């Protein structure tokens, strides 16, 4: 009986230590709540569009998960709208975009059209992007949210926001 009690006490102490460490020693981090399937109201102004873009960028879109310096697996986006214009002129560019805005759209819905050198999926020699089409289920952005992201990227890059709040015939034709 004595042995049993000693062994039981030892086991409980060990379990207690691990619990103590996980609960009180490591910083308490609460994972984000599941995103609400909120109805996205069509933004009426450019400012609202950029605001929507920012909230999607940091929330539903999960962009900041990979596109940060810490993660190191995706190009940084602070000047994306400016660099976009240069990317389409690069000799390796084989995509269909003819202007910066189109490149940003293509990068969101068909990331493998052009992979920035060094950021390809492992073993694909930069031919395949590890990023998926953002309209796919695990992120599931709709067209409004995609346009909002582009507007946000243009805004933080310091260029003029060329996306109109509501899709016009012109923008539909471009895409």
């Amino acid at each position, binding site marked *: 009986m004595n*042995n*049993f009690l*000693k*062994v039981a006490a*030892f*086991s*409980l102490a*060990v*379990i*207690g230590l*691990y*619990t103590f*460490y*996980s*609960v009180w020693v*490591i*910083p*308490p*981090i*609460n*994972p*984000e*709540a*599941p*995103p609400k399937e909120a109805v996205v109201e069509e933004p009426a102004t450019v400012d609202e569009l950029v605001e929507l873009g920012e909230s999607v960028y940091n929330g539903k879109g*999960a962009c900041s*998960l*990979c596109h940060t310096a*810490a*993660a*190191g*697996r995706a190009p940084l986006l602070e000047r994306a709208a400016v660099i976009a214009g240069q990317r389409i002129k690069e000799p390796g560019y084989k995509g269909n975009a003819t202007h910066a805005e189109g490149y940003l759209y293509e990068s969101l819905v068909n990331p493998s059209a052009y992979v920035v050198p*060094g950021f390809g*999926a*492992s073993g694909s020699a930069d031919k395949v992007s*590890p*990023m*998926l089409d953002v309209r*796919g*289920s*695990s*992120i599931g952005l709709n067209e409004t949210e995609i346009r909002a992201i582009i507007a946000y990227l243009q805004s933080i890059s310091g260029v003029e926001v060329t996306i109109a709040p509501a899709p016009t015939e012109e923008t539909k034709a471009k895409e």
Partner: protein
Amino acid sequence: MALSNKRLSIIKVVFSLSFFAFLLAVYFFASGQPVVSAPVLGALDYPATHGVNRRLAVWMAAQMHLWFAAFVLAVPILVLILEFIGVIKKDKRYDRVACEFLRVSITAFSLTAITGALLLLSLIVFYPQLMKYLASIFGPTALFYALFFLFESATLYAYYYGWGRMSEGSLKWVHLLIGLGLNTAGTGLMFVANAWVTFMMTPAGVDVSGVFNGNLWEAVNNHLWSPMNLHRFIANIAYGGSIVGAYAAYRYLSAANEKERAHYDWMGYTSSLIAIGALLPLPFAGYWLTAEIYSYSQQMGITLMGGVFAWLFIVQAVLIGALFLAANYYLWCGFGRGSYGERYLGYVKYIAFVIAICFLVWFTPHTLILTPTEARALGGQYHPYLGPLGLMPAKNTAVNIMLLFTFLSFLLYRRSHRTPTVAWAAYGKAAQAGLFTAAVINITFLGVYYGYFTNTLYKVASSVPQVATTLFVIVACLVIEAFMLRGAERTEFRWGRMPGRSQYALLLIAVSFTWLMGLMGFVRSAIRQHWHVYGVMRDASAEAFTPSIAYAAKVVSIGTIIFMSIIVFIFWLSSAGREASDE
């Protein structure tokens, strides 16, 4: 009071047959389901639970089942190996201990089935829509599961009850074959169940709305199926070994005489050798599992390792560090079994120092949670000097060196009662020392150069040659050892000459393994976040939120206590039963 053996076997047979019938019923029900797209659920689509936390109920049932299943898959592997060694070496001791392992664990099989039934029931009751959807795809697999289950029950009973009758000559080989059948059935069961759970994480064979394309093999053979199969197979062996080791440790502590002490000392050592041996290739399997997660979804991969669960892997590091320290401590105590052991005691402090440093490196986080004031004082998000130790290359370097030095402890332990007498012994030892030195240099170079002077791809890729180096050293040293110790001078070696505290090391290993399994099971499930089937079927229940590590730790701890209590009860039952039949 104790049930007679015959009555017990009848009960077990009846139980197995009913469970088999139940599984057949599931199969026929599931196969009749039409192919549908994954339902889009709302909170009201989940049946009312009257205060029961449905997610917690399923989590507990699942974790209990996984612990028991790991144990009952490991025991037949250990038993078959030991029985086989006994036949080859013509040493009855192995045969006796193999039979004892099996006898002690037999009740665990029933508990595995019971917890499995509980899990299935709770899933059907609490998550009917999910089960209907999964059944529409995996219906036919339930038939395989039922057949494997029946086959396992039959082989288990034949293997156990036939031990005495099939103990000599060609019948012994038939017995071994039955044991192999038992293992095959158990592994098959696990492979089938792995398909269901990995589909929920990395679905294949369905389109974005969840409509199944009819290719069952594609759904089964999804990204994570093979890595999960390998990882669980190896981990089960390590786990089973550690539980048996804990059993032996306890029996050692309460042994009545020297003979018993010697027997349980040997049992503890043998099972721990298997457990720690199986632990060595586990990082490979884990690496493959994580690589496949990343290749399926970058997002899921980064959530796992770089996002909110990064700190969980620091907790894992603490547990693995504890495991290694305990294993090494047990080996060092073992030096005392052989009369030459004392000459190696001087090395212990150096090995302990290295392992402690590696443990600390493993322990060190990268991302710190700081308030803005703290961040300003520190000059950034990371500690300027210790921050780099938090990155994967440092971790990989540390764990490989820990593995190497643990192996060194093992080599020294084996020399505690053997002295090489071959003419080239000095050169052999020099070669081994050179091998170790070159390996440490190589591993450190790989970790530092590719870890800090290149990009992410190299950082991860360099871990492969690091592990290859470690494995090469282990194999090469064992080969040199085998040749060098031919005709070695052997001195006194006594089982049972271990201090009591060494047995607590074995207990620590078993408890840590159990807790670690719970923690890792949590993180695997949690990276699915608010999805029942990732990207295909959303979880809309009230418990869809991802729990924090603190919450998970509490759940895992309660589960561990419950599980270990039941295991203790099972072991007690087996010894009580034996005493009853002795009387």
